[in-house]
Structures are given as structure tokens and as C-alpha cells.
């Protein structure tokens, strides 16, 4: 990168099962207002906006239209990324690096309570050959989970440990939706959704919004809070048809992480990263993604969680916020990961604070079975 970019403000709504009193715009306004207050900036100091939304999840064509006034974009340059908020943040960053703007507000929202997830995620699949089979986010994830477990001998108990850990962490996060005290047995005995995925292996339906403010170095140096620097970013897409991929591997994540690590000068992620917030839509995904991120070798994700290393007190805490398992605001979920990393690096993460965190990783996903990944390395 030619110039450094920092995150100078973050804001998130509480993530809840059904924000019946909030429209998309209400949630976006809340997150935007919180991010501005956090950065000590007024909306006039924001030069441009990138929003993230999805027409299918919102049930609206041109879904960005519902929130353009709420994010303060009136008479400003604005764009919309359709996909996870981590990708929108990347575009927001390039709009600063291009020299066009000093500050970018990135805001994402999702209201699972107004959506029918199975229909919406079924629409990800090929309309001619696959869609009629009824494949959706859960059933496709089940195929991936089974392939991954068979390939590496990952057990349902190891997956369950992720649920126990993340729902437990959620007690320390006031924004999380689903703090639960669970045992491995609770997870194993929960209702089966699509073999081998059970209810407590899956993330919940959630409503929420998140906003971050990016700024170029000259502006970030004057910001109210200590700037959190973007050290590296990478994103990458894998093949589309599930049969074209080995679902036990995550080649696109490996490549996205390689790019981000290379930019950030990270050689040994397990040692150099202090905290990781990743996109655990299902328990097995946390294990698989920790492998893709190089926190352990291929097939070692299960042993990693068993070792306790990914606990809040472990040497590489993963999802101290509770992760997606504790609140899955689809399009906003990746941006929440970035916001959580910022709080960790500033030492503002309250009870979920990882002591002395100086380098953090945030991760977002688009498409079925983690087809497209975005990886951010953030640091002080």
C-alpha cells in the first residue's frame, strides 16, 4: 500500500433475534451514529460512504436505497457492495488509497427476522442443475462438514466444543444475541438440522447493523481514539460448483490469508496474531477456517480447539465475541468481526478483552460453503 489507512471509529447495534421496532434504516442510523461518536467525527467530516447489503436478504431490489439517508450519504459519493461487510470495507479502503477521499464510512445491515433463509440461500445455487434439489446454506454446509470430518477424522465432539466456547464467550459481549452455558452433550443432543449439523452447531437468525470509519494516515493521526491500522488485506474466490471443489480444504481462504499476511509481514500467524474473529456460521467452519488461516495444519482444527488454545485465555483466542454462532447478522457479520478486532486492539473489549492484543485478524465470507473469503490483519 502506498499510504497507511486506519480504522478510527466503530459502531454496532445489539444483535437480536427480532428487532421488531427497527427498520433497516433505523439500524443503519444507530450504527452510523455510534461509529461517528466513537471517532469523534461529525457526518460532515465523512467524505464518502460504502454500504453493504443484499437484495435477496432484504427482499428489496436496490437494497442500498433503503438506507442511503440513514447513513448520512446525502450529497456525498456513495457505493454499495453486495456481499459481506469485509468486502465492502476493502472497497472503502481503496477509495481512500485512490487519493479521492480522506475518510470512508462503511456500513452493513441484515434482518434475518424478515427473511426466509432456506429460500434465500437456495437462490445461491445453479437454477438448472442444483436448485431443485433444495440445497441451501445448511444442507450444503452439512455436505462440507461431512467431507471435512471424513477426510481428517474430525469428530462431532470437536465441533461441539466450538459451540460451547463461543456461546460461553457471548456472555462477555453485550452486543451478542445468544449467550448459552452449554456442555458438549447439549450440543450433541440438540435437534438435527442436516446430518451432521445440529441446531447448536448452527448460527442463529439475527438482526443488526455495524459501521466502521476508515481514514488515511494524515487524518487518523488526529483521531479521538488510537487509530487501528490496516496492516494487510486479501480476498479470493474459489470454484462455484461444489463438485469442482474439495470441500475439506479452503484454497481461497489460504490464498486470501497469504496475501493479507504478506502485506502485513506476518510469517507465523499462530505466534504473531493475538486474537482472531472469524466467520463461524457453523461449528465445523471455525475448525476448517483456523486451518485455512494457518493457525494449525490441515486436519488439525479439531485438536486445536481441544487443546484450549482458542479459548479466551488460550494462546490464540478465536471469537472472544461469541462469533457468528452467537449472532449471525449475515451481511454485517464480517464487519462486526472487524469492529470487534478494533475494540480488542484498543483495549476496549470489556470482559471479552484479550490481554495485550496488538495484532488481530478479522474474516468474512461470501457464497456457499465459504466460496469467497476476505481476511484483514489489523494492528496498533
Amino acid at each position, binding site marked *: *500500500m502506498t499510504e497507511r489507512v486506519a480504522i478510527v471509529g466503530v459502531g454496532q447495534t445489539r444483535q437480536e433475534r427480532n428487532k421488531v421496532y427497527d427498520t433497516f434504516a433505523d439500524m443503519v442510523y444507530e450504527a452510523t451514529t455510534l461509529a461517528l461518536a466513537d471517532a469523534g467525527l461529525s457526518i460532515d467530516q465523512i467524505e464518502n460512504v460504502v454500504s453493504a447489503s443484499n*437484495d435477496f436478504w432484504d*427482499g428489496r431490489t436496490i437494497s*442500498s*436505497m433503503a438506507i442511503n439517508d440513514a447513513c448520512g450519504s446525502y450529497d456525498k459519493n456513495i*457505493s454499495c457492495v*453486495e456481499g459481506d461487510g469485509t468486502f465492502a470495507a476493502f472497497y472503502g479502503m*481503496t477509495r481512500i488509497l485512490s487519493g479521492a477521499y480522506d475518510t470512508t464510512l462503511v456500513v452493513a445491515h441484515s434482518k434475518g427476522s424478515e427473511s426466509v433463509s432456506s429460500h434465500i440461500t437456495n437462490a*445461491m445455487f445453479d437454477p438448472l442443475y442444483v436448485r431443485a434439489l433444495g440445497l441451501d446454506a445448511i444442507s450444503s454446509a452439512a455436505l462440507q462438514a461431512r467431507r471435512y470430518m471424513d477426510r481428517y477424522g474430525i469428530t462431532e465432539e470437536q465441533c461441539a466444543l466450538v459451540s460451547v466456547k463461543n456461546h460461553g464467550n457471548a456472555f462477555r459481549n453485550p452486543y451478542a444475541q445468544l449467550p448459552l452455558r452449554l456442555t458438549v452433550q447439549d450440543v450433541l443432543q440438540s435437534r438435527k438440522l442436516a446430518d451432521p449439523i445440529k441446531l447448536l452447531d448452527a448460527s442463529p437468525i439475527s438482526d443488526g447493523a455495524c459501521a466502521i470509519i476508515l481514514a488515511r494516515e494524515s487524518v487518523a493521526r488526529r483521531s479521538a481514539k488510537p487509530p487501528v491500522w490496516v496492516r494487510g488485506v486479501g480476498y479470493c474466490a474459489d470454484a462455484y460448483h461444489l463438485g469442482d471443489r474439495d470441500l475439506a480444504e479452503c484454497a481461497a481462504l489460504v490464498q486470501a490469508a497469504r496475501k493479507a499476511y504478506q502485506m502485513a509481514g506476518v510469517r507465523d500467524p499462530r505466534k504473531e496474531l493475538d486474537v482472531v474473529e472469524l466467520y463461524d456460521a457453523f461449528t465445523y467452519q471455525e475448525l476448517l477456517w483456523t486451518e485455512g488461516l494457518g493457525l494449525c495444519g490441515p486436519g488439525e482444527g479439531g485438536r486445536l480447539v481441544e487443546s484450549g488454545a482458542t479459548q479466551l485465555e488460550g494462546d490464540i483466542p478465536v471469537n472472544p465475541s461469541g462469533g457468528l454462532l452467537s449472532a449471525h447478522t449475515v451481511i454485517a457479520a464480517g464487519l462486526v468481526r472487524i469492529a470487534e478486532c478494533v475494540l480488542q486492539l484498543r483495549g476496549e473489549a470489556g470482559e471479552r478483552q484479550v490481554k495485550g492484543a496488538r495484532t488481530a485478524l478479522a474474516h468474512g465470507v461470501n457464497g456457499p460453503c465459504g466460496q469467497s473469503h476476505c481476511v484483514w490483519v489489523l494492528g496498533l
Partner: protein
Amino acid sequence: MPNRVAIVGTGQTHHCTRRLDVNGVELIYEAVCRALEDAELKMKDIDGVIIGNMDHFEGINYVDCWSIDGSGGFGKPTMKLTTGGTTGSTLAIGGYHMVASGMFDKLMVIGWEKNSESDTTGAITTAFDPIWDRLVFAGAISGLAVEASVYMATFGVTERDAARVTVRDRRHACLNPYAHLRKEVTIEEVMNSPKLSDPLKLLDLCPRTDGACAVIFASEHVAEKICPKPAWVLGTANRHLYTYLGDADLVNLPSLRRAAQELYSKTGIREPLKQIDVMELYLPYSFAGLSWIEALGLCKPGEAPRLLWDGVTDLGGELPINPSGGVISCNPIGATGLIRCAEAALQIMGKADKRQVPDVKIALSTGFGGCFWSDILLYGAKKPQ
């Protein structure tokens, strides 16, 4: 120091009502191959892909993921940008910023739509607020009809004046092998075509089109090596002002006025009519060809009919508008704004064949969509300072 950015290759499908011979991915592949061929590049030379369309037309969720086999995005950074009708121009603006950032050297930018698979009006209607707007404004045509009525009432402009815009764009389209409707029409034919929503008639409006467009944006380090005469991007601006239709100010498209003011002040354009050599404008219906060129500062409000009747905006005139035939002749929605960008670039590159305007140094393109939103880009033959 940010990178300067140029367009080094473009590709379009031959647009038409219904492409039954290809699915969406194959349609995209066709445009991508043509762009690569134009730039004499291979897919392995491309560092990333951005793509866009309007989801509810084809009913495909996560199009960036679905289209990988056609877009060439496999193993590359791939992202989707979507802003409704402005999608194509939003993609072009995205291509510019992403390459200018230094994060990419050669970026493939793709807009596409297979309108034949859609219920266009049904899908557009869901853009509007379900409580306040949706029941009173259905789809795109009624909103434009209201804008036209306001414009006529404000300035005394007539339906015949507007028909002149259709006549121009349809005449130009005959010179463009990619355009969808390649048949001239007369003022009388426009006036006598079936009424859709008063004062708009069938020939005042754009068609529904299947098509895709791909444009390769490159950084200054490689642009001139790829293309002897690249089209440099001089600036971009956009305004998506309104969320509720009831809030929209319908006189001279304020979003375009504000975006143009910003663009002109950034790029030193003081007299657009004199300084700009050609414009490719997203004019989805005839009246826009009057009201919106006033928003672009080509003349005072209410004076556009004179420019049209005097032939100023015809090929051969002082400032040709839409030598490609424009949107009235071709509208694959998600691609449309990007086709304007590609056509403007072709004019700078000198590759516009029969529709070429001689010696183009500065070109401008726009996008329109959403709730009376506008995007705008300016291109130059000379590398910017």
C-alpha cells in the same frame, strides 16, 4: 501518490431481446473474452474481478460467486457491486478506485443482465419502500412519466421535442453493430406509438435487453504497454440523493447536477459544451435527453430542445451525444452504465468504427438508476498530470 488509471480493453455482447442460446454465465463469458481479445490479454494477466447486475431480474443470489466460470474470477479477488440502474457506472467507478489504490494492476469489470428472464417492472417495484412508495409507484415507467410531466409543465417543452431525442438515438444505433434496436424511427412514429404512462409512449422508452459488457481497467505502469491509446479516467462523482420517491426533486435531475458540478470542478471543466467532445449518457427515455443535458450544464434549463433541433447533439454536431444509440436503443440494465463507459472509451481509443466522432480528446459517461440517482465519469486521451 495514487496511480493514474486507464481503460485498456472493452468487450460487449451483441445485445438483443432474448439470448436463448446462452445462460447468464455464458453471456458474461462472451463479454469477458471480447475484452481480453481487445486488450490482447489472457485471463491469467487479470488480478481481480468486479461484477454487477440487479439480483431480482434473474433471481440469482451471490452473483459474484455464481458467475466465476464466466467472469474468470476463480482464484482471484472477486466482488459484487450493485446499485440498481446505476450498477454499470458504479462498477466503472469501482474499477477506477480499486486500480488507483495500487491494489490492482489489471482489473476486469463486468456488468450484465438477462432481462428476458425477468419480470422487469415487478422486480423494480420492490426497490421502493413497502409502506410509503410501493403502492403508488410501480416500476420505472410511472416515475419517469411524473418527471416528464413536471419538466413539460415547468418549461413548456413538448412531446415532439422529446421525440427528437429518440429519433437521434435510434438513428445513431444503426451505426453500432452491438445495439439492440437498429432501426430508424421518425418523430411521427414516436408520437403515434402506444401510450404507456402519460405523457410517455412506447418509443419514448428504452427496451428490455439481454447483454453483458466487460471493461479492463489498468494502472499507469502497464496501461500504455497494453494499449497504444488508452482512455484515461480523469475523474468520477456520484449522488444517490433520495431514499423515498416523495422526497425527489424532479426538475433537471438534481443528483446529476450535483455530481456534474463536483466532477467539473475536480477536472477543470468550465464550458462542458465546448470542452467535451462526446457524451455517452444513460438516457432511459426521451425526455431525459432534454432535461438531463440541462443538468449537465450544456445549456440553461428549458433550452435543451433548441440544441436537439439544431443538431448540436447529433453525430457531426458540436457535441455528439450517444453515438452508440444510447439506452433508448439498448438496455441490458446491469450492463448499461458500463456500456456507456466502454463506448466513451472506444471514442477516445479511436475504435468506434462507423459511430466514431473524429479526434476525441475528452469524453463523458453517466449512469442513472435507483431513486433518480446519478453517476458520472470523465475520460481523456492525455495522461492526467
